[in-house]
């Protein structure tokens, strides 16, 4: 029970680091820790692979979205048009 608990906790930590790695925010020490954990833990290994794949495909697709400001201006013009139509 106790060991189960600690294992879950270390997996949580590992996945947090793994997420950070995707945004280049993990430190070298954290990365080493992750590496050791991944060597032992199959679930986290799978998650790491999946996570990497997701990042790669997002980079590959070069998805963009509108800036917040652009959206706000668009919203304003649209709501004005809605009001015009209703009146």
């Amino acid at each position, binding site marked *: 029970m106790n060991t189960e608990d600690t294992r879950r906790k270390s997996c949580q930590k590992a996945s947090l680091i793994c997420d950070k790695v995707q945004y280049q925010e993990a430190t070298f020490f954290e990365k080493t820790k992750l590496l050791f954990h991944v060597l032992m833990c199959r679930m986290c290994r799978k998650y790491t692979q999946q996570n990497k*794949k*997701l990042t790669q*495909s*997002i980079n590959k*697709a070069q*998805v963009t979205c*509108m*800036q917040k400001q652009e959206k706000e201006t668009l919203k304003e013009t649209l709501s004005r048009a809605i009001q015009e139509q209703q009146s």
Partner: protein
Amino acid sequence: MPKHKIDPNNWIDLYSDYLFNYTITRVNDRDLAKDLIQETFFAGLKSMKNFKGEASERTWLISILKRKIIDYYRKINSNKAKAEVRIKYNSDTESEGDWLEERVADPFDKTAEDTLENEELGEAIYSCLEKLPEKHAAVFKMKTIEGMDTETICNELNITASNLWVIIHRARTAMATCMEKNWF
């Protein structure tokens, strides 16, 4: 009172990112894409009464947007609008490119196919993003697509950093499962 109700006030929150991504892969110009989306929303507003609710709102808006994009290419009278296939083999007098090898597509030049695949990939990503809970999707978008700092997002949404990472983690897991199902 019709069975389906559409609310144009929510359009921008719900669909603008998807539509924008769809447009930008086709016209390759941010300002133009913005204009086209605005026109699409206006046109949608005008023909709201004709919307029968047979398709989802997004599909309906996309179909308007498609017309707008085609109209744009017609207006500038581009080659894309006048696209027709002309295949001639050996009819010109010039002998350059006579060899069959010169007429076969370059196997290393896969750009067109790649772009096409990337367009579809972008759409797949966005449709997966739509299935996430609203807040998770918002955080994921800010962090991954807009590339904002952790701190900026935390300040803006009034959450702690560890809170943000938990949301990111859940969003990533859901996205990975969704993409696994629909794409990979």
